[in-house]
C-alpha cells in the first residue's frame, strides 16, 4: 500500500496544476482523484466518522457537545476492549463468537465470588474486590482456553468451537444465577471501577488506554505479535519458518478471552450487578468494529489504532441514534447495514489498490 500512496503524494501537485486549465469537469475529476487516493491511504473509517459527526450534529444539538462526546468515550470503553480481543483472533484468520458469553461469565462469576467473599471477610475490602475480579477473569479465560485448545490442537473451525462455547458458557451463567441479577458486591467496587473519575477522566477509560498501549507493544514490538500476523498471513509459511502455530493460536484465543473478561468485570462494576445477558450483542458489534476498521476477515491484516477508532465509531453511532430518538429495533438494522457497507467499501478500496489484476 505504502508504495502506491507515496506515488499519489508525488502526483498530487500535478493534478492541482492541471485543474486550472481543465475547468470544472477537470476539477471534479481531480476531486475524485483526491478522494480515491485518500480512500486508498486511510480506508473508509475516517469518512464514516466524519459523516456520522455531520449527520448527528445536524439532527441533534446535544450531539457535538464535549459532555456528550466524553459520555460516548466512557460508554464505548467496553466495546473497545472486547474489539481489541476480537481483532487478535481475526488477525490469525479466526473468529470468536463467544466474546459475549465470556463477558457474561466473567460478570456472573465475578459478582458471585465477590459477594461470597464479602460475606466472609467484609473487613478486608481490597482482598474481596481482588478475589472477585480474579474469579471473574479466570472464569472468562477458561472459555478462551477451551476455544484455544479446540482451534490449535483439535483443528476445530473457530466458528464452530466459539459458537459452541458461546452456548455452553451462556447456559452455565444462567444456571449459576438462576436468571436473576447478582447483587451484594461492596459499593466501593462500583464506585471506583464503574463510576470513579480520576483527574477528570473515568477510571474505565484508563483501563482501555492501558490495554491499548500494552497491546500495541505486544503486537508491534514482540515476536509473538508478529507471529499472530504470520499465522493469519499464511499459516503454512509460518510453520515452515519455525513459528509454533499451535501455541500462537492457543494464546491468541486466551488473550482474547482475557480482554473480554476484563471488559466483563468493568461492566459489572458499572452495572453494580452480575448479569448473564449483558454481552449478547458483543460478537456482532466487536466484529463490526474490526471490519469497519479494515481488519481482514481472511486474517493477516489489521491495526490497533483503527480498531479503537472503529469501536468508538460504533459507540458514536449508537449514541447519535439515541439522541435522534431512533427506535432501538431500527438501530440494530442500521448497525447491520453499516457493517455490510464497510465490507463493500473495503472491497472497492482493494480494487483501487490493485487496479484489476487477473
Amino acid at each position, binding site marked *: 500500500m505504502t508504495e502506491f500512496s507515496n506515488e499519489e503524494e508525488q*502526483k498530487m501537485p500535478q493534478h492541482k496544476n492541471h485543474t486550472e486549465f481543465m475547468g470544472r469537469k477537470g476539477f471534479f475529476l481531480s476531486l475524485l482523484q483526491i478522494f480515491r487516493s485518500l480512500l486508498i491511504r486511510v480506508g473508509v473509517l475516517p469518512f464514516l466518522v466524519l459523516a456520522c459527526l455531520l449527520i448527528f450534529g445536524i439532527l441533534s444539538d446535544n450531539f457535538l457537545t464535549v459532555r456528550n462526546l466524553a459520555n460516548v468515550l466512557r460508554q464505548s470503553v467496553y466495546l473497545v476492549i472486547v474489539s481489541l480481543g476480537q481483532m487478535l483472533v481475526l488477525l490469525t484468520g479466526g473468529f470468536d463468537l463467544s466474546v459475549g458469553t465470556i463477558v457474561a461469565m466473567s460478570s456472573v462469576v465475578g459478582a458471585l465470588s465477590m459477594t461470597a467473599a464479602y460475606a466472609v471477610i467484609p473487613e478486608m475490602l481490597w482482598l474481596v474486590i481482588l478475589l472477585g475480579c480474579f474469579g471473574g477473569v479466570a472464569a472468562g479465560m477458561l472459555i478462551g482456553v477451551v476455544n484455544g485448545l479446540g482451534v490449535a490442537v483439535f483443528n476445530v473451525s473457530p466458528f464452530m468451537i466459539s459458537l459452541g462455547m458461546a452456548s455452553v458458557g451462556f447456559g452455565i451463567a444462567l444456571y449459576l444465577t438462576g436468571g436473576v441479577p447478582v447483587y451484594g458486591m461492596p459499593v466501593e467496587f462500583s464506585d471506583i471501577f464503574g463510576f470513579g473519575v480520576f483527574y477528570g477522566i473515568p477510571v474505565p477509560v484508563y483501563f482501555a488506554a492501558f490495554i491499548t498501549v500494552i497491546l500495541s507493544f505486544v503486537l508491534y514490538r514482540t515476536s509473538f505479535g508478529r507471529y499472530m500476523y504470520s499465522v493469519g498471513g499464511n499459516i503454512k509459511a509460518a510453520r515452515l519458518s519455525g513459528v509454533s502455530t499451535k501455541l500462537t493460536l492457543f494464546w491468541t484465543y486466551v488473550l482474547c478471552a482475557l480482554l473480554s473478561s476484563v471488559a466483563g468485570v468493568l461492566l459489572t462494576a458499572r452495572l453494580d450487578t452480575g448479569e448473564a445477558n449483558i454481552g449478547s450483542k458483543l460478537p456482532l458489534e466487536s466484529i463490526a468494529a474490526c471490519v469497519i476498521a479494515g481488519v481482514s476477515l481472511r486474517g493477516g491484516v489489521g491495526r490497533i489504532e483503527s480498531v479503537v477508532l472503529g469501536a468508538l465509531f460504533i459507540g458514536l453511532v449508537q449514541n447519535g441514534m439515541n439522541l435522534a430518538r431512533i427506535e432501538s429495533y431500527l438501530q440494530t438494522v442500521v448497525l447491520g447495514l453499516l457493517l455490510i457497507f464497510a465490507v463493500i467499501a473495503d472491497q472497492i478500496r482493494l480494487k483501487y489498490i490493485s487496479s484489476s489484476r487477473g
Partner: protein
Amino acid sequence: MVALLQLKKIRKEYSGVAVVRDINLELESGEAHVLFGENGAGKSVLISMIAGASRPSRGEIYFKGKRVNIWSVQDARRLGISAVFQEFSLIPQMTVEENLFLGAEITAAGLLRKSLLHAMAAELLASLDFDISPSRRVDTLTRAEQQMVEIAKAFRSDLSILILDEPTASLTQHETQRLLLLIEKLKKQGVGIIYITHRLAEIRQIGTRITVLRDGHYIDTVPAKTTDEKQLIKLMTGRSVEKIFPALPREIFETLLAVNSLTTKDGSVKEASLHVRRGEIVGLAGLIGSGKSEFAQACFGMRAWLKGSLVFKEKKIKFNSAGYVRIASMLRAGFLYLPSDRREEGLMMMRSVRENMSLAALKKKPFSNGVLLNKRAEVKKTKELAKKIRLSPPNIESAVELFSGGNQQKVMLARCLSQKYDLIVFDEPTVGVDVGTRIVIYEFICELCKQGSAIILISSDLPEILNLCHRAYVFYRGRIQSEHSGVAINETNILSSFFGKGALA
C-alpha cells in the same frame, strides 16, 4: 499479409506509474513469439491485456487487421485467444475435470453430462501426456500438476492465439518436452503463440522471434535462431554477462546430514539414503512425483517417516509419535527448507517484504533479543537483503503481492540470508526468475557454500543440476536411482536415470 495480432502503442499504468510503456508488437500466425525480459519488466501485464484480464490505459489492439476491444476473458475467448497465466486460476475444491470444463460444461436437458465430461477430460490429459487422474481434487495436486491442468485448460477449445506465461516454470524436462512438441504442432496449424519464459533452451527450441522488454519499454525484436545467449542477456539487462554459472567452491568438509533408508508413511519416498557434506552442493533430480522434494520435506518435518534414520550435525534426530521431525528444532539446529510453492507455502502475500524476510529469524539477533523486536535493525538488515537480491522496486514496506512473480521468489529466497544456516534446501529456487537474477542466486548459493554451509538443490531445470552441483542424486518412483559426481554429472547420465534405467538399482 496482415498480422494475426497487432498491438499499437499499448500502455498500462498503475496509480499513475507506467509499467508497460507504448509497446508495439506483431504476432504472425504460425509463429512462437517469445517475450523476454527481467522480472518486473512488464511481460505479464502486457499479456494480461491481450487475454482480457486487464484493460490497457491507452493504445489499440488489432486482430486480423480489425480494431478490437478485449475487455474481458470472455471477449478474448470469443476471438480464440486463450491464456495460461503465471498465477493459477484453478478452483482448489473442485476436481480436475470440473476445473477443465468450468464455464464450458456440456449439458443435456439442463443436467451435466458427467461421464462425457470425464471421458473428454481424460482424453485431453492423455493427448498432452499428462499423467493426472481427472477425478482428483485440485488441492491435492502438486504445483507442477496444477500447472499441467492449467495448460490443459487452455487447450480445451479452438485456438487462434495461445498465450503461455512461464508455463514450464515448475515442470521437469519430460513434461516440458511434451509441451514444446505440442506447441510445434500448433504452430504448423497456424496458431499464433506468445510464450514467456526465462529458460534459454526453450527459446532456442521453439522460438521464432524474440521481443525483449526492459522496465516496460520495448527494446528490440530479434530472430530466435540466430541470436545467441550473450546477446539476449545483454539486450535484457543492458550490460554484458560473461557466464551464467559461477565456479564451484572446491573445499569440502565433514558430513553434515546423513539419511539412512528413509521411507515415508505415504510411500512417496522409499529406502532412500544419502549424505551431504559441509561446503558441498548436492543436486536432487527426477521427474515430478519422483520423491525428490518429498525426501527433503520428510527431513525437515513436513512429512511423516515410516522408517529410517536421520543424523544432522552428528546428532541423531528423533521423531514424534506420528513420525514427524519437529520443524522448529530443525530450524534451530540450522536446517532450512525453502519450499517450491511460494504462494501456498512460502509467503504471506498481504504482508510486507520486510516481515516476510525476517519471519524465520525473528527470535535471533539482530532482529530481536528473543522477545522484543528491534525494528530499526530489522529495517536495516532487510534493506541490505533487498539490495543483495536486487529486488525491484526496492520497496521493503510494500505488500509482497504487488511484486512481479520473480521478485516474489527473490523475497522468499532472502529468508536463507536473514541468519546463518548450516544446511539449506532450495526446492526449485529459480522458478520464474530471470536470467540476470538467476546469476545472482547462483552466486549467493556458491557463496553460502564457501562460508561453510551445505546446500541441497532440488531442481527440474537440468542445467542447474549439471552446472551447479558437486554431486547429484536422481530419484525415480520414490527411490534413489543413481548417484553421480564431478564430470559424471552430464546430460546422458542424468537423463537415463530419470526413467528408471541407471547405474544404481
